[in-house]
Structures are given as structure tokens and as C-alpha cells.
């Protein structure tokens, strides 16, 4: 029993030993974006758009990031990442770690107001699904799973 109690301590110790050595020099600074600006961009889009709201301090965002990266590589719709209430260093480190090659355009919203203006909430993560022309088809709150992401991409692509 004592050996079993030792296991969590070992895991925590190993986790604490790990340092972040992510190179962010290849990641460009994220441009700032306002609500109206992004809404206008979505309205002009001729293709469906998935907007994922994330932050480097958000643990669930880390959890869904590999799925979004894979989806952005595979699907034909456009992906936009909206970083909120974060700093450049944290955001660029997150991108270098999770989205180094993914075709996702990232923007920064330091105040975190843009998701509310898009029709969402201030919580993260959020994933918006927009039809061509900027119509909001679906808003998913919280961590998204593969099935839901695939279904909603299919919906906006079919729409």
C-alpha cells in the first residue's frame, strides 16, 4: 500500500522536473483584433470558418489543442484561433507547442471581449462554427470532442 502511495508523489516529482524548452522564435506576434473587425472578416468570408477561443493558461484548451490541430490540417474549412486575456509570450509558446504547422490564423484579444461580441461568453475554451457569410451556426462551450467537431464542420461545410 505504501508503494502505491509513492506513485502519485513520483509522478508529481517527474512533472515538476520538466521544463519548457519550446522555441518561439519561428512564431510571429499575434495581431490584435476587435469584435467588429472580426465580424466583418467573417461576413466577407466565402468559406465556412471555425473560430476557436483559447488561452495559454487554460488547461482544457491544451487538452483540445491536438484535436484542433489535426482538424485544421485535414478539413477544408478555415480555422481562426482567438487568443484571449493572455500575453504574447504565453500565446506564442502555446502555438509553438501545439500548432507549429497547423493552417490556423491566430489573433489576440487581450481584454477577452470579442467572443461576447461574436455571440459567446467570456469562458474558455469556446468554438464557434460560422457558415460562409458569417452566420453563426453553432457555438460549442467547453472542451470539444472529435465527434462534435467533425459533425459541426460537416454541418457548416454542407450549409
Amino acid at each position, binding site marked *: 500500500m505504501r508503494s502505491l502511495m509513492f506513485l502519485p508523489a513520483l*509522478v*508529481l516529482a*517527474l*512533472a515538476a522536473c*520538466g521544463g519548457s524548452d519550446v522555441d518561439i522564435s519561428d512564431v510571429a506576434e499575434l495581431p490584435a483584433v476587435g469584435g467588429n473587425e472580426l465580424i466583418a472578416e467573417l461576413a466577407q468570408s466565402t468559406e465556412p470558418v471555425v473560430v476557436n477561443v483559447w488561452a495559454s493558461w487554460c*488547461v*482544457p484548451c*491544451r*487538452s*483540445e489543442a*491536438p*484535436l484542433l490541430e*489535426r*482538424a485544421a490540417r*485535414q*478539413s477544408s474549412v478555415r480555422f481562426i484561433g482567438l487568443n484571449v486575456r493572455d500575453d504574447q509570450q504565453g500565446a506564442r509558446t502555446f502555438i509553438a507547442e501545439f500548432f507549429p504547422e497547423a493552417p490556423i490564423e491566430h489573433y489576440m484579444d487581450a481584454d477577452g471581449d470579442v467572443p461576447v461580441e461574436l455571440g459567446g461568453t467570456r469562458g474558455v475554451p469556446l468554438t464557434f462554427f460560422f457558415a460562409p457569410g458569417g452566420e453563426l*451556426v*453553432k457555438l460549442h*462551450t*467547453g*472542451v470539444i*470532442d*472529435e*465527434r*462534435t*467537431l*467533425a*459533425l459541426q464542420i*460537416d*454541418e457548416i461545410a*454542407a*450549409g
Partner: protein
Amino acid sequence: MEFSLLGAVFVAVVPLYLVISWEARRGNAASCARNLWDVALAAMVAGLFVGRLAAMIGDGVNPLMNPADILIVRGGVATGPATMAALATVAWLGRSAMLAYVDGLAAAALAGLAGWHGGCVVRDSCLGTPSDLPWALAQEGSSVTRHPVEIYAAIMLIVAAIGVAQWRARGRPLPGVPAATALLIAASARLITEPMRPSLGTGQRWWYAAGIAVAMVALVAAIRRGTGTDQPVSETK
């Protein structure tokens, strides 16, 4: 906060508990029903933990560097490793009478899986690939009708759960045969419905096919062992 996943887990656990209790009242597993419930819960937790770790590693996320991510079950659980961990937990905790334990949980596990799939109603995630069938459903605001694929799976599994429970109550099957049959049915139900699930290409078909193969081997082994010893299930405990 978003609690629909928790709701779906509740919908899965209730039938699991009800079938264990029902079988206990029918005398199928009277002496170990309490243990069965504990073993089932332990197997669920072990399965979730290992399945989550496997999903993280598969996504390239180091669980040691990101231990908090392990708790984000919604981020994904790898079904195959989760099932193996759950089965290993049952085998280890019930090692004193392994066949009685796995058989005792067979119908309950099918009912729990049926509840999990039926819990899609709570999670708003029942729909699959597009379909023109009369019972196909569209999500709110959409004109695209789709297979209610999780309902298909739930129906298959609940019918199988009732069948296995009745079989155990009336047919006195050979030890190990109900458990192998339940695994065969569960893997088959998933494999049959998998093409109707929206996916980004990480379908688990090979895991389900492997589950069917393992279940068939276990079934043959249980029948051979049972016919060799001619030992009824109630006497294995």
C-alpha cells in the same frame, strides 16, 4: 461549466447498477453483488484513467508534463486501452473467482454501455452521418438529416443486456461464455455503428475488430473448458 458529460456518465451508471441489483435479486450473483458494484466502479475509473493517458500520448501530449490534462476526460479517451484496463481491473479484483465476476458483470456492462450511448441525449451528440431514412434527425436550425447513430448503439446494447441477463437466469450458460458473448456483442455494436459516426479519421475500427477477435477466442476457450469439466456457472463461485 458544462455538465452534460457528467449527466451522460450518470445515465450510464444507473442501468449498470440496476442490472447488478436485478441479477442479484434473481440469484445470479447474490453472494457477490456488492463486490460486483465495487469492481465495476473500480474498472470504470481504471478504464477512464488509462484511456485518457493513451489518448493524451496518442495526441503527443506528455501526461507527466501536463498532469492536470488527465482530468479533462472530455478531451478524449482511447476506447481500446480503456477497455483493456477495465477488463484487467475486473480480472485482478475478482481473481478469486474470475469467471464468476466477469460473467456477473456481463449484462450490467452491456446495460451501462447502452446507457452511455443513450446519454447522447443529455450531451446533444446523438447524430451521425447524413441519412435520408424516415427516422433520420436534423440538429436544430439545420436541414441536413442524420442517423441517430448513438440511439442505434444504445438499442442494440440494451437488447443484448436483457438477453444476456435472461440467458444467465434461465439457461445456466457455461462459465465465461456470457462474458465473452457480451464482449463480442459490445465490440460488434461499436464496429457496426462506427461508419455512421462523424470522424476526423481516427476511427477505432481496428480496436473493435480486435475486440471481436479476442471475444471469439475467449468464447471458444470458455466452451471447451466448460464442456471439458461440465461445471455449471453457479458452482464456480
